[in-house]
Protein backbone atom coordinates (compact mmCIF):
# COMPACT_ATOMS: atom_id res chain seq x y z
CA UNK A 1 0.00 0.00 0.00
CA UNK A 2 1.39 3.37 -1.05
CA UNK A 3 0.67 6.45 1.00
CA UNK A 4 -0.21 9.71 -0.70
CA UNK A 5 1.94 12.76 0.10
CA UNK A 6 -0.90 14.25 2.11
CA UNK A 7 -1.21 11.14 4.26
CA UNK A 8 2.53 10.97 4.72
CA UNK A 9 2.56 14.55 5.92
CA UNK A 10 -0.32 13.90 8.30
CA UNK A 11 1.44 10.80 9.57
CA UNK A 12 4.60 12.83 10.11
CA UNK A 13 2.69 15.51 12.01
CA UNK A 14 0.92 12.93 14.19
CA UNK A 15 4.19 11.15 14.91
CA UNK A 16 5.82 14.45 15.83
CA UNK A 17 3.02 15.32 18.24
CA UNK A 18 2.98 11.86 19.85
CA UNK A 19 6.78 11.56 20.24
CA UNK A 20 7.09 15.19 21.34
CA UNK A 21 4.32 14.87 23.93
CA UNK A 22 5.84 11.69 25.35
CA UNK A 23 9.23 13.39 25.65
CA UNK A 24 7.75 16.50 27.28
CA UNK A 25 5.73 14.35 29.70
CA UNK A 26 8.76 12.24 30.63
CA UNK A 27 10.92 15.33 31.11
CA UNK A 28 8.23 17.20 33.01
CA UNK A 29 7.74 14.39 35.53
CA UNK A 30 11.46 14.33 36.23
CA UNK A 31 11.97 18.10 36.23
CA UNK A 32 9.20 18.65 38.77
CA UNK A 33 10.41 15.87 41.07
CA UNK A 34 13.54 15.93 43.22
CA UNK A 35 16.54 15.27 40.97
CA UNK A 36 17.69 12.61 43.45
CA UNK A 37 14.77 10.43 42.37
CA UNK A 38 16.01 10.28 38.80
CA UNK A 39 19.61 9.99 39.99
CA UNK A 40 18.56 6.95 42.00
CA UNK A 41 17.01 5.39 38.90
CA UNK A 42 20.21 6.00 36.90
CA UNK A 43 22.38 4.61 39.71
CA UNK A 44 20.43 1.37 39.50
CA UNK A 45 21.95 0.67 36.06
CA UNK A 46 25.41 0.54 37.65
CA UNK A 47 26.88 1.92 34.48
CA UNK A 48 27.99 5.47 35.27
CA UNK A 49 30.32 7.20 37.72
CA UNK A 50 28.62 9.44 40.32
CA UNK A 51 29.42 12.75 38.62
CA UNK A 52 27.80 11.57 35.38
CA UNK A 53 24.74 10.45 37.35
CA UNK A 54 24.46 13.91 38.91
CA UNK A 55 24.91 15.74 35.61
CA UNK A 56 22.47 13.44 33.81
CA UNK A 57 19.82 13.67 36.52
CA UNK A 58 19.93 17.46 36.38
CA UNK A 59 20.17 17.91 32.62
CA UNK A 60 18.22 15.04 31.02
CA UNK A 61 14.74 16.22 32.08
CA UNK A 62 15.31 19.61 30.46
CA UNK A 63 16.83 18.14 27.31
CA UNK A 64 13.77 15.91 26.98
CA UNK A 65 11.41 18.86 27.43
CA UNK A 66 13.23 21.03 24.87
CA UNK A 67 13.48 18.25 22.30
CA UNK A 68 9.80 17.48 22.78
CA UNK A 69 8.83 21.14 22.32
CA UNK A 70 11.03 21.45 19.21
CA UNK A 71 9.52 18.32 17.71
CA UNK A 72 5.94 19.41 18.32
CA UNK A 73 6.57 22.86 16.83
CA UNK A 74 8.64 21.36 14.04
CA UNK A 75 11.72 23.43 14.76
CA UNK A 76 15.02 21.77 13.86
CA UNK A 77 12.76 18.78 13.14
CA UNK A 78 15.43 16.59 11.58
CA UNK A 79 18.10 17.28 14.17
CA UNK A 80 15.63 16.97 17.05
CA UNK A 81 14.33 13.63 15.83
CA UNK A 82 17.86 12.31 15.21
CA UNK A 83 18.97 13.30 18.73
CA UNK A 84 15.76 11.87 20.16
CA UNK A 85 16.25 8.64 18.23
CA UNK A 86 19.84 8.34 19.45
CA UNK A 87 18.65 8.86 23.01
CA UNK A 88 16.09 6.09 22.63
CA UNK A 89 18.62 3.71 21.12
CA UNK A 90 20.93 4.48 24.03
CA UNK A 91 18.09 3.90 26.55
CA UNK A 92 17.24 0.62 24.85
CA UNK A 93 20.84 -0.60 25.07
CA UNK A 94 21.00 0.46 28.69
CA UNK A 95 17.82 -1.37 29.65
CA UNK A 96 18.88 -4.41 27.65
CA UNK A 97 22.26 -4.52 29.38
CA UNK A 98 20.56 -4.24 32.78
CA UNK A 99 18.26 -7.15 31.91
CA UNK A 100 21.20 -9.20 30.67
CA UNK A 101 23.21 -8.46 33.83
CA UNK A 102 20.17 -9.43 35.92
CA UNK A 103 20.08 -6.10 37.74
CA UNK A 104 17.08 -5.73 40.04
CA UNK A 105 15.68 -2.59 38.40
CA UNK A 106 12.77 -1.25 40.43
CA UNK A 107 11.85 0.90 37.44
CA UNK A 108 13.71 2.15 34.39
CA UNK A 109 13.48 5.80 35.38
CA UNK A 110 12.06 6.68 31.95
CA UNK A 111 9.10 8.54 33.41
CA UNK A 112 10.59 9.52 36.73
CA UNK A 113 9.43 7.56 39.73
CA UNK A 114 5.75 8.19 39.20
CA UNK A 115 5.43 5.25 36.84
CA UNK A 116 7.04 2.03 37.78
CA UNK A 117 6.94 -0.33 34.80
CA UNK A 118 9.10 -3.37 34.42
CA UNK A 119 12.27 -3.08 32.37
CA UNK A 120 10.94 -5.47 29.74
CA UNK A 121 7.78 -3.42 29.33
CA UNK A 122 9.82 -0.22 28.98
CA UNK A 123 12.05 -1.92 26.41
CA UNK A 124 9.02 -2.67 24.26
CA UNK A 125 7.43 0.73 24.89
CA UNK A 126 10.61 2.55 23.86
CA UNK A 127 10.68 0.56 20.61
CA UNK A 128 7.18 1.82 19.79
CA UNK A 129 8.19 5.40 20.58
CA UNK A 130 11.30 4.95 18.45
CA UNK A 131 9.00 4.12 15.50
CA UNK A 132 7.16 7.41 16.02
CA UNK A 133 10.49 9.26 16.15
CA UNK A 134 11.48 7.62 12.87
CA UNK A 135 8.19 8.65 11.26
CA UNK A 136 8.69 12.19 12.56
CA UNK A 137 12.15 12.22 11.01
CA UNK A 138 10.98 10.79 7.70
CA UNK A 139 7.70 12.65 7.13
CA UNK A 140 7.60 15.39 9.74
CA UNK A 141 8.87 18.33 7.67
CA UNK A 142 5.70 19.51 5.97
CA UNK A 143 3.57 21.06 8.71
CA UNK A 144 6.49 22.43 10.62
CA UNK A 145 7.98 25.72 11.63
CA UNK A 146 11.06 24.75 9.65
CA UNK A 147 8.96 24.58 6.50
CA UNK A 148 7.17 27.80 7.28
CA UNK A 149 10.44 29.66 7.81
CA UNK A 150 11.87 28.11 4.65
CA UNK A 151 8.88 29.27 2.57
CA UNK A 152 9.11 32.69 4.12
CA UNK A 153 12.75 33.12 3.17
CA UNK A 154 12.02 31.83 -0.39
CA UNK A 155 9.20 34.39 -0.71
CA UNK A 156 11.56 37.10 0.41
CA UNK A 157 14.23 36.22 -2.13
CA UNK A 158 11.70 36.21 -4.99
Amino acid at each position, binding site marked *: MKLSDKNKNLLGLTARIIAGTIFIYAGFLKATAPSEEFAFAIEAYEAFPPFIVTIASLSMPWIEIYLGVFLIFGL*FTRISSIVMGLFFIFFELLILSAIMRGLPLADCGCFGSAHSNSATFELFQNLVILCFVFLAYKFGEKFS*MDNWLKNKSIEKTK
Partner: protein
Amino acid sequence: MKQEILRKIFIGAGLIFLSTFIVMFIRHLDVLSHREAPEFRILGNKNAKIHIEEFTDFACPACTGAHKIIHKLFKAFKGDIKVSFKHYPLLSLHQWSMHAAAYADCAGQQDKFWDYADLLFENREEWGFTEKLPKEAFKTYAKKLNLNIDKFDACMNNPETMKTVKMDMAEGKMLEINATPSFFVNKKRAVGARQLIDKVRKFEYLRRKK
Protein backbone atom coordinates in the same frame (compact mmCIF):
# COMPACT_ATOMS: atom_id res chain seq x y z
CA MET B 1 19.55 31.06 4.34
CA LYS B 2 21.56 32.73 7.08
CA GLN B 3 18.51 34.72 8.11
CA GLU B 4 16.41 31.54 8.17
CA ILE B 5 18.86 29.88 10.57
CA LEU B 6 19.00 32.98 12.72
CA ARG B 7 15.21 33.01 12.92
CA LYS B 8 15.18 29.35 13.88
CA ILE B 9 17.71 29.96 16.62
CA PHE B 10 15.72 32.95 17.84
CA ILE B 11 12.43 31.02 17.94
CA GLY B 12 14.21 28.03 19.51
CA ALA B 13 15.62 30.22 22.27
CA GLY B 14 12.13 31.64 22.84
CA LEU B 15 10.62 28.16 23.11
CA ILE B 16 13.36 27.06 25.52
CA PHE B 17 12.78 30.12 27.66
CA LEU B 18 9.00 29.66 27.66
CA SER B 19 9.07 25.94 28.48
CA THR B 20 11.66 26.51 31.23
CA PHE B 21 9.53 29.27 32.68
CA ILE B 22 6.37 27.11 32.68
CA VAL B 23 8.10 24.13 34.35
CA MET B 24 9.84 26.34 36.93
CA PHE B 25 6.53 28.04 37.68
CA ILE B 26 4.84 24.69 38.29
CA ARG B 27 7.76 23.66 40.51
CA HIS B 28 7.41 26.91 42.40
CA LEU B 29 3.72 26.20 43.01
CA ASP B 30 4.96 23.28 45.08
CA VAL B 31 2.01 21.14 44.09
CA LEU B 32 4.10 18.15 43.15
CA SER B 33 6.67 17.91 45.91
CA HIS B 34 4.36 16.63 48.65
CA ARG B 35 3.44 13.05 48.03
CA GLU B 36 1.49 10.56 50.04
CA ALA B 37 3.29 8.31 52.47
CA PRO B 38 2.56 4.57 52.18
CA GLU B 39 -0.73 3.57 53.79
CA PHE B 40 0.94 1.88 56.79
CA ARG B 41 2.76 5.12 57.67
CA ILE B 42 -0.46 7.09 57.94
CA LEU B 43 -2.09 7.43 61.32
CA GLY B 44 -5.57 8.70 62.08
CA ASN B 45 -8.48 9.97 60.09
CA LYS B 46 -7.57 10.29 56.42
CA ASN B 47 -10.11 13.08 55.94
CA ALA B 48 -9.03 15.02 59.02
CA LYS B 49 -8.75 18.76 58.60
CA ILE B 50 -5.37 18.83 60.28
CA HIS B 51 -2.67 16.98 58.42
CA ILE B 52 0.80 16.63 59.90
CA GLU B 53 3.65 15.44 57.75
CA GLU B 54 6.51 14.34 59.96
CA PHE B 55 10.08 14.17 58.61
CA THR B 56 12.04 12.19 61.14
CA ASP B 57 15.32 10.43 61.85
CA PHE B 58 14.95 7.45 64.18
CA ALA B 59 18.33 8.09 65.84
CA CYS B 60 17.82 11.77 66.57
CA PRO B 61 17.00 12.59 70.21
CA ALA B 62 14.75 15.55 69.36
CA CYS B 63 12.73 13.28 67.07
CA THR B 64 12.16 10.86 69.95
CA GLY B 65 10.63 13.66 72.01
CA ALA B 66 8.59 14.98 69.11
CA HIS B 67 7.31 11.51 68.36
CA LYS B 68 5.87 11.32 71.87
CA ILE B 69 4.20 14.71 71.28
CA ILE B 70 2.66 13.34 68.12
CA HIS B 71 1.16 10.46 70.12
CA LYS B 72 -0.14 12.94 72.72
CA LEU B 73 -1.67 15.14 70.02
CA PHE B 74 -3.24 12.09 68.48
CA LYS B 75 -4.85 11.20 71.81
CA ALA B 76 -5.90 14.80 72.49
CA PHE B 77 -7.61 15.04 69.12
CA LYS B 78 -9.17 11.63 69.61
CA GLY B 79 -7.75 10.43 66.32
CA ASP B 80 -9.26 13.30 64.34
CA ILE B 81 -5.91 14.23 62.90
CA LYS B 82 -3.90 12.77 60.07
CA VAL B 83 -0.22 12.03 60.60
CA SER B 84 1.95 11.01 57.67
CA PHE B 85 5.35 9.71 58.57
CA LYS B 86 8.26 10.47 56.21
CA HIS B 87 11.81 9.28 56.65
CA TYR B 88 14.56 11.83 56.77
CA PRO B 89 17.68 10.13 58.15
CA LEU B 90 20.61 12.48 58.64
CA LEU B 91 23.33 10.19 57.41
CA SER B 92 26.21 12.45 58.32
CA LEU B 93 25.20 12.11 61.97
CA HIS B 94 23.49 8.73 62.19
CA GLN B 95 24.88 6.13 59.86
CA TRP B 96 22.27 3.43 60.55
CA SER B 97 19.18 5.61 60.42
CA MET B 98 18.45 4.85 56.81
CA HIS B 99 18.57 1.12 57.55
CA ALA B 100 16.36 1.67 60.58
CA ALA B 101 13.88 3.46 58.34
CA ALA B 102 13.88 0.58 55.88
CA TYR B 103 13.40 -1.96 58.69
CA ALA B 104 10.51 0.10 60.03
CA ASP B 105 8.91 0.05 56.58
CA CYS B 106 9.32 -3.72 56.51
CA ALA B 107 7.54 -3.90 59.85
CA GLY B 108 4.92 -1.66 58.24
CA GLN B 109 4.41 -4.28 55.54
CA GLN B 110 3.19 -6.47 58.40
CA ASP B 111 1.08 -3.65 59.88
CA LYS B 112 3.45 -2.92 62.73
CA PHE B 113 5.12 0.26 61.53
CA TRP B 114 4.12 2.45 64.47
CA ASP B 115 5.01 -0.19 67.09
CA TYR B 116 8.35 -0.78 65.44
CA ALA B 117 8.97 2.98 65.21
CA ASP B 118 8.29 3.25 68.96
CA LEU B 119 10.85 0.52 69.63
CA LEU B 120 13.42 2.23 67.41
CA PHE B 121 12.95 5.53 69.21
CA GLU B 122 13.07 3.90 72.65
CA ASN B 123 16.26 1.97 71.86
CA ARG B 124 17.99 4.47 69.63
CA GLU B 125 21.13 4.48 71.77
CA GLU B 126 21.39 0.73 71.48
CA TRP B 127 21.38 0.55 67.68
CA GLY B 128 22.15 4.09 66.59
CA PHE B 129 25.83 4.34 67.36
CA THR B 130 27.28 0.88 66.78
CA GLU B 131 30.28 0.38 64.55
CA LYS B 132 28.69 -2.32 62.45
CA LEU B 133 25.18 -2.44 61.08
CA PRO B 134 23.08 -3.58 64.06
CA LYS B 135 21.09 -6.18 62.12
CA GLU B 136 20.53 -8.32 65.19
CA ALA B 137 19.04 -5.45 67.17
CA PHE B 138 16.64 -4.67 64.31
CA LYS B 139 15.62 -8.33 64.17
CA THR B 140 15.18 -8.52 67.93
CA TYR B 141 12.63 -5.69 67.78
CA ALA B 142 10.88 -7.51 64.95
CA LYS B 143 10.72 -10.67 67.05
CA LYS B 144 9.35 -8.68 69.99
CA LEU B 145 6.44 -7.70 67.77
CA ASN B 146 5.99 -11.28 66.54
CA LEU B 147 6.76 -10.37 62.97
CA ASN B 148 7.35 -13.03 60.36
CA ILE B 149 11.15 -12.90 60.09
CA ASP B 150 11.33 -14.53 56.65
CA LYS B 151 9.00 -11.90 55.23
CA PHE B 152 10.92 -9.24 57.12
CA ASP B 153 14.23 -10.35 55.56
CA ALA B 154 12.71 -10.68 52.11
CA CYS B 155 11.39 -7.14 52.41
CA MET B 156 14.84 -5.85 53.36
CA ASN B 157 16.36 -7.56 50.34
CA ASN B 158 13.86 -5.94 48.04
CA PRO B 159 15.42 -2.85 46.39
CA GLU B 160 11.98 -1.16 46.43
CA THR B 161 12.26 -0.84 50.24
CA MET B 162 15.39 1.28 50.24
CA LYS B 163 14.09 3.18 47.25
CA THR B 164 11.00 4.29 49.18
CA VAL B 165 13.22 5.62 51.97
CA LYS B 166 15.44 7.43 49.47
CA MET B 167 12.39 8.95 47.82
CA ASP B 168 11.37 10.41 51.17
CA MET B 169 14.86 11.79 51.62
CA ALA B 170 14.76 13.31 48.16
CA GLU B 171 11.40 14.88 48.93
CA GLY B 172 12.79 16.28 52.17
CA LYS B 173 15.74 17.76 50.31
CA MET B 174 13.43 19.37 47.80
CA LEU B 175 11.48 20.86 50.68
CA GLU B 176 14.81 22.17 51.97
CA ILE B 177 14.68 20.35 55.28
CA ASN B 178 17.91 20.85 57.19
CA ALA B 179 16.88 19.74 60.66
CA THR B 180 14.91 16.92 62.18
CA PRO B 181 12.23 16.64 63.25
CA SER B 182 10.56 18.88 60.68
CA PHE B 183 6.83 18.97 60.24
CA PHE B 184 4.38 20.34 57.76
CA VAL B 185 1.08 21.11 59.40
CA ASN B 186 -1.38 21.70 56.58
CA LYS B 187 1.72 22.42 54.47
CA LYS B 188 3.04 25.05 56.91
CA ARG B 189 6.53 24.25 58.14
CA ALA B 190 7.34 23.64 61.79
CA VAL B 191 10.71 22.57 63.11
CA GLY B 192 10.81 20.80 66.48
CA ALA B 193 8.08 19.86 68.92
CA ARG B 194 7.32 23.37 70.17
CA GLN B 195 6.68 24.80 66.68
CA LEU B 196 4.61 21.72 65.93
CA ILE B 197 2.30 22.38 68.87
CA ASP B 198 2.01 26.07 67.93
CA LYS B 199 1.13 25.25 64.34
CA VAL B 200 -1.41 22.62 65.33
CA ARG B 201 -3.06 25.13 67.67
CA LYS B 202 -3.30 27.59 64.78
CA PHE B 203 -5.24 25.08 62.76
CA GLU B 204 -7.37 23.78 65.60
CA TYR B 205 -10.30 26.00 64.57
CA LEU B 206 -10.62 23.95 61.38
CA ARG B 207 -11.86 20.98 63.39
CA ARG B 208 -14.77 22.97 64.78
CA LYS B 209 -15.78 24.10 61.28
CA LYS B 210 -18.31 21.81 59.70
